[in-house]
Structure formats: C-alpha cells, structure tokens
C-alpha cells in the first residue's frame, strides 16, 4: 500500500514520517516514532491506555488514522515532563499517592488527567471519577488515582496563586 507523508507537532517538536493512510495514530507513534508511552490495551477505544492530547482534546489514539492528525499538535505522557527533566505535577502526584501499579494504564491516565484539569481546575471527586471513566485500570481500583488527581489540582492551583 502506498504511503503518505505525515507531519505533526509532537510534544513541542516537529516530526514527520511515512505511513500507510490506514495506519492508526497509536501505531504511528509507537512503531514509526518510537514514542512508546501511550500503550495498547484494546485497539477498540475502550481502555484509554492509548490516550493522547490532540489540539487540546483527549483522544484515544487507536481511534484515529494518522492522516487525521496531519499538521496538529499532539501531546503524549512524555511531553508532560518538566523542561528540566523532572516529573510534572500530575506525574509526581501519581507517585506520591501510589496511583499506579503495573504502570500500563498510567501514561493514558496522566495524559487524560492533564486535560481534565485544564478543563476543570477545581474538580470534585465525582467530576474526577466521571472525567476519568474512559480510562481503565486493572490494578489500582482507582481510589489512589482519584486522590492523585485531586492533589494535582490543589498543587496546580497553589502554584497559579503564587505566580499571581
């Protein structure tokens, strides 16, 4: 099958590659670009392990063809690390509150939590539970994930306040 030229802004950097038009974004990220943070748990849009951020929206990257993201901004969990290489707030809070075990759902969880907190900086527990319901975790029972996200919100808000 002939290949198409794909160009996108990935975690702040212009990247490009050749892929068959039918290639799913998750495979393009993982196989072509070797960005293996986003994982594959189902390839049927149920588990959320492949969640990335496209132009400011959470998207399960197994549901889009690579052609659909041509020219767009894509953020993966790798892009949520601070510039100095230290863990970002959500990443740190997942560690602090034991919000992960096997770590397989974690990149999708953190990427989704990142967007959720952009959309709603002061979520209630219900908001978090509802907003994260597209991401499955088999290990943690979610309780500590919810805690980690609530703590991230607090910390981000405190940082914002301090900056103002």
């Amino acid at each position, binding site marked *: 099958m002939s290949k198409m030229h794909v160009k996108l802004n990935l975690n702040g950097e212009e990247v490009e590659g050749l892929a068959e038009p039918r*290639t799913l974004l998750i495979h393009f990220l993982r196989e072509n670009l070797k960005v293996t943070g986003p994982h594959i748990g189902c390839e*049927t849009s149920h588990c959320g392990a492949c969640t990335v951020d496209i132009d400011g929206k959470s998207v399960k990257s197994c549901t889009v063809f690579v052609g659909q993201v041509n020219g767009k901004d894509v953020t993966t969990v790798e892009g949520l690390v601070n510039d100095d290489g230290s863990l970002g707030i959500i990443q740190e809070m997942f560690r602090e509150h034991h919000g992960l075990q096997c770590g397989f759902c974690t990149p999708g969880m953190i990427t989704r939590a990142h967007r959720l907190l952009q959309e709603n900086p002061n979520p209630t527990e219900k908001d978090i539970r509802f907003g994260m319901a597209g991401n499955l975790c088999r290990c943690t029972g*979610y309780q500590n994930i919810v805690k980690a996200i609530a703590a991230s919100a607090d910390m981000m808000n405190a940082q914002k306040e301090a900056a103002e």
Partner: protein
Amino acid sequence: MKDEVPTTEERVANLKGMGSSRKRVEDVRFTQGRGNYVDDIKLDGMLFGDFVRSPYAHARVTTIHTEEAMKVPGVLAVITAADLEPLGLHWMPTLAGDKQMVLADGKVLFQGQEVAFVVATDRYAAADGVEAVEVDYEELPVVVDPFKAMEPDAPVLREDLEGQTEGAHGPRRHHNHIFTWEQGDKDATEAVMAEADVVAEEMIYYHRTHPSPLETCGSVASMDKVTGKLTLWGTFQAPHAIRTVVSLISGIAEHNIRVISPDIGGGFGNKVGAYAGYVCSVVASIVTGKPVKWVEDRMENLMSTAFARDYWMQGKIAATKEGKITGLWCHTTADHGGFDACADPTKFPAGFMNICTGSYDIPTAYLAVDGVYTNKAPGGVAYRCSFRVTEAAYFIERMIEVLAIKLNMDAAELRRINFIKKEQFPYNSALGWEYDSGDYHTAWDKALNAVGYDDLRAEQAQQLEDFKAGKTRRLMGIGLTHFTEIVGAGPVKNCDILGLGMFDSCEIRIHPTGSAIARLGTISQGQGHATTFAQIIASEIGIPADDITLEEGDTDTAPYGLGTYGSRSTPVAGAATAMAGRKIKAKAQMIAAYLLEVHDDDVEFDVDRFVVKGAPERFKTMKEIAFAAYNQAIPGVEPGLEAVSYYDPPNMTYPFGAYICVLDIDVDTGEAEVRKFYALDDCGTRINPMIIEGQVHGGLTEALAIAMGQEIAYDEMGNNKSATLMDFFIPTSWETPNYETDHTTTPSPHHPIGAKGVGESPNVGGVPCFSNAVHDAFRPFGLTQSHMPHDHWRIWKTANGLGLHS
C-alpha cells in the same frame, strides 16, 4: 556538635526498611512513559506474527489454503501444524500434565483456537495475511455444558486421548473426563450428614471469567544463528520455568536460551501459562532468521488465553441446632475447556480447592472434583488467586450463608461460633492443611465494630419495613465474609510445577562503597518488587533501600525461581531475600569483629552497623564493613560480600481477613450501589503499608467486577459472547466505590520475617462479600442462592422471580 549524630530512630528511618510506606522506585519510569513492556521492544529487522483463528468451537480442519496469503505484500511465511510436526512442536505440554495443540492438528476444540501463524514485515501486513488464509472446516457437534459433556453419548472431544483410561491424575472414566480428585473422608462425612440436626444443601456456581490484565500477552523471539542463542522476551510470570519448558520442547540447550520478562502490564494469572504465540514466535524466528514479535489483541486475549474459575460446586453442610458445624461435603464439576491447561502444582489438579473448610473448625469433610473437557478455551488459571482458593472461599462463604438461612441465625454469629480459635493454631484441617497462625475472633470483632454492625442491621430492618410499606423501592444488603487464604506455594516436598520444586531465590551483592544489587527468581507485574524487596534487605543488613538496585526477570542473570503468582513472592522469595541478607550479615559480623579487634561474639547488629557489646561508641557501619570486604586481607575470610539463598518454605502461609460490604439494590432496575466496603486484612508482618493498601484496592475492584458483572459467556454453539471490552465488564472509576482498609497483624511463625502475602486476599474475600450482600438483600423474601455475576439483569430477574415487581 552532638545533634549531628543521628538517633536510632533517624538511622532506622534513613533505611526505609520494612514497615515504611516507601514511595515506589518503579514510578519514576512509568509516570513518564519510560516503561519497557514487551510491545515496546523493537529490534532491527523484526517481523510480526498473527494468528488465523477458528470461528468454530468444534470442527474438523480439512484444508488450509495459504497460497493467497503468501502473495500479500509483506507476508513471509504461513506456519501450520504440518510445518510444526517435523519439529515435534505441533503440540505442547500444559502445566497440568495434559497436552495442547500449538496449531490446529486436524481439528479445533474451541472458538478462537490457533489454526495458522502468519509472519510478515509489520502488524498490518500480518493482519492482511490472516485475512487471506482460507480454511475449510467441517463442523462437529458442540458441547459447552460440562454435565452434558459427561453423558454417555456426548461427542468425543479429545480424539487424541481416545481409549486412554489413565490420565495425568489417575483414571478417566469417560471420553470427556480428565480426572477425579478426592480429599478427606467420604464415609465419615456421609455419616455426619445422615445424623446431623440440620443439613443445608446448595449448588454454588462460580462462573467463568478472565484475568484480562491491561497489557495482553506477547513475546519477541530472536534466534541468533551465529551464536546459536535464543533470546525470548515475553509476558512471563515465571521466566525461569519458561526457559526450562522451551528447552525441553524445542531441544535447544538451556544455556543457549535467555528468557527475559521486561516490565509486565499486570498479570493476575494470565501470564503464567505457555501459549501458542510464544512457541510460534520462536519457530518463526528460527525459520526466518529474524526476530519475531507476537502480541495478542484484546479479543484474542479474552477468547484464547487463560480463563479462570468455571466451577460447579455442589455442597452440603451439616450442623447442630445451635449452629455448630459438624461436617462439609462438596462435589465439584470443573469445566476445563478443550485442554487441561490449569496452572496448579502437579499434585493438586484442582489446586488448593481443599482449603474449602475456610476459617472454620469443621471436624469432618470430603471433597471430590471432576475435571471435564468442553468446547471452550483452555485455562483454569489462578486469577488473582492461589490455585482455586477463590473458588474454595466463595463456596464456603456462600454455604455459611445458606446454613444461616436454614438455621434462621445471624450469619455473623454463625461464623463466630465456628471460627478456629487462636489457641488451636497450628491447626490441622479435615482436608489436610496445617494452618500456620490466625486470630479470627479478634479480626471479626474489630470489623463488626468498625462498621457498626448492629446499627446496620437495625437500619436494614427499617428499610425492609419501608419497602414493604411501599415507601421505597430499594433494599439494603449487608455482605459478610471471613476468608482464609493459602498462599506461598510451596514446600518442595509437595509442590512442583512440571517437576520443578516451588522454592524461590535471591542473590545479593554488596558493592565496595556500600550500595548493593539484588536479583530474584520472581517477577513483578505491578506489585512493586523493586521497592519492597529492597526494604527487606535494608532492614536485614542495614543498607538504605535507596542504595539497593533490584533486578528480576532475566534468566541469564537472576537466580532460578518459580516466578510470581499465587501470592508467592513475599512468602517464598521474600524469605529467600531475608535469608540471603542474613548470610551477608553473618559475614559482615566477622569482618566487623576483625576491624574492631574483638571476638565475633562480642559485636552485635544495630540498625546499620555492628557495635561492640556494651560499648556502642565502638562500631563499624555496613558501609565501612563493605569496603573492608574488598580492601583488607582478613584471615579466614574470603574477600567480597555477597550471598545467594534458595528458600524452600517449610509450610504455606495462611493470610486471612474480615470484609463487610453494604449495598443498596433498586429492585426495579436491578442496579446495586455499593455504599460501604470495609476490608480488614491480616497478612502477617507488613513490609510496605502503602503498597498493601494499593493491592487491597485493586483486588477488591477485580472482585467487584467478577461478582457484579464480569463473565466469559458462551452460547450453545460455543460462540464466545464476551470477547471485547464492550461485553466483558471491567469497572471504571465511575462504578468503583471507595474502600476502607484496616488490619490486624498475626505474623507467620515459620517465615523468616513473619510475612504472609496479600496480593490476592482482596479478590478471594471480596467476591463472596459482594455476592453475599446481594443475597442478603433478598434473604427476607426467601432467596438462598442465585448465581453470579450479579449484573443488573440478573438482579432484576431475581427480584422478579421473588414476586417483587407485582
């Protein structure tokens, strides 16, 4: 400058040893997407394999047409049983003493069975190749019901076994019969039943389900033709055992095989067995000379690898009028699917189902299990479970409730009067186990008090009255469970898998500057071994956990061990870790005594150093001792500081717990909402409370799934009706409740650090607890048993059947 000398407490805290909620070292990688899971592995020239699978549950395979597939761009090979046969690899041994087709050899026995393996340059080309393979099938009659499978004229499923009257576990009495396993005293139990004041009888079904970790199974095989060495990465819960099995079935010498389990995205028993994909990736790599990756998709995972449970447990429980249990009888029909691929120790074809007397002092008991073939996927793995203990716990905890109904007694009280008493430990059960330690009454009372049990019952009575008066359509259920686990398999004298004794191992090397590396025979799948095992070492030898690297999963470097499942890592490898630490400590003591110029017996260990007895200002820290081990010639002591321990546990460990669940049921919609869940666990000595709590949360959520909706279901034609995450229930954050955790601590007397293991307890105890709560809500209306999973539809049907909708 007195305050610069750290206090003992500060020195202890600095170690981050046992008992500390040390943050996990793994998380720094995982939270930024730097894990290294099997599907992340990419090697130069790597090919991708994919299976052609059977759409039928039972059919003859007459022809496989591969020509068109070979024309698909990128497809390099299509492997069938005929290609594997000359290598003797078309069948493989299962862990249960049976054998299993790697690729369909003349027929298929379940929907989704592997028929051909297409090897191509990438996963898309492989999928195209799979599409292009044409297979001619002749359909055969299908049996999905294990009772029908045992009827005289049932179709013969395993023609390869025809005429074989002796199986791996004794006589076979029917062509679809696998084994009968009997434990306890049949005649005595029947006599007790005949004479008892009260006998309650019930069929308890624990439905078929699946561990479905978020990462599916996969492997990457790379045969180096120059060195003759095979490297096999895979989702293996037991990498060393896999190496031995690969060597035995492929004929490749074991030293020429390196098996690596990289990061594993959850296991829960799914990744214990050997699968066709592993074998085919190896063969494909040998054939093509290139590395070959195989990763199953979710549908393949749910259809073909590792189902769990599917036990039909007919039970009778006898008691006095006052509620003292006098006997327990159980006959189980175990549906194993097309091949017996259970992962149990060899001598236990039904695993530890004989722990089914639970937490109770039951003097007489009898258990028989019949294993049966059907046209379903093989497996029968221990899904977050120590070899069928989940089935056993569900059985006894339901039978107790059924008995309570018969006696018209409160189920909490019935449990209390039958618990094994603290002073009875070590306790010998009627079915042959020696329980190591327990204090059930204390745990039970703590749990009942914590939830305000009497108040809950009063509230429930009020709600029932309101319901009857038409003021509410909701019923309240209170679920109780007291479970006893049996984990840490196990003593080599009676536990082996494929003849490999179930010991485990740890090797520790102390570096000259006082940091260390430890390697174990186990493999973490999310349990946080790199964090917790370092804590054991820190406490044992006084080196900060942060200075200890922990490695597992590479058979070229780690000592041999049987892997991680059945909550065995802490009981077995954890013990090996402590013992290896003690060997190092013993040598360190000699070095310290030499450096301090006193006799060995005149120094003693103190947190992170050896001190001269009675003169604590004279000491050598472990750091100093480590350096001395490498730079001093000490008479009679070899240089270096390292040790290895292979630990053969003297007994199993018996964690236990008391769980209470409160839920509200809407009788019109069948919805059940968990209002409260309290979980008290006693896993002996606690290594990392944060990780224990996390394990409990996760296990309870898997229990919630299983009890309330998760099921591998088949129709009459053997079609798997639950092979996607659309149909197979995995709870989201939305339907998962918050859990309250609690603990008591009853150390194991025979374990070097008293730890018992915890990973599976919440699943073992959680399932009966949720299920009992549903049953309890309907108890006033005469319900004694309704089968899981208690999804909305089934609960609605129960309510309807009890006349609650009229």
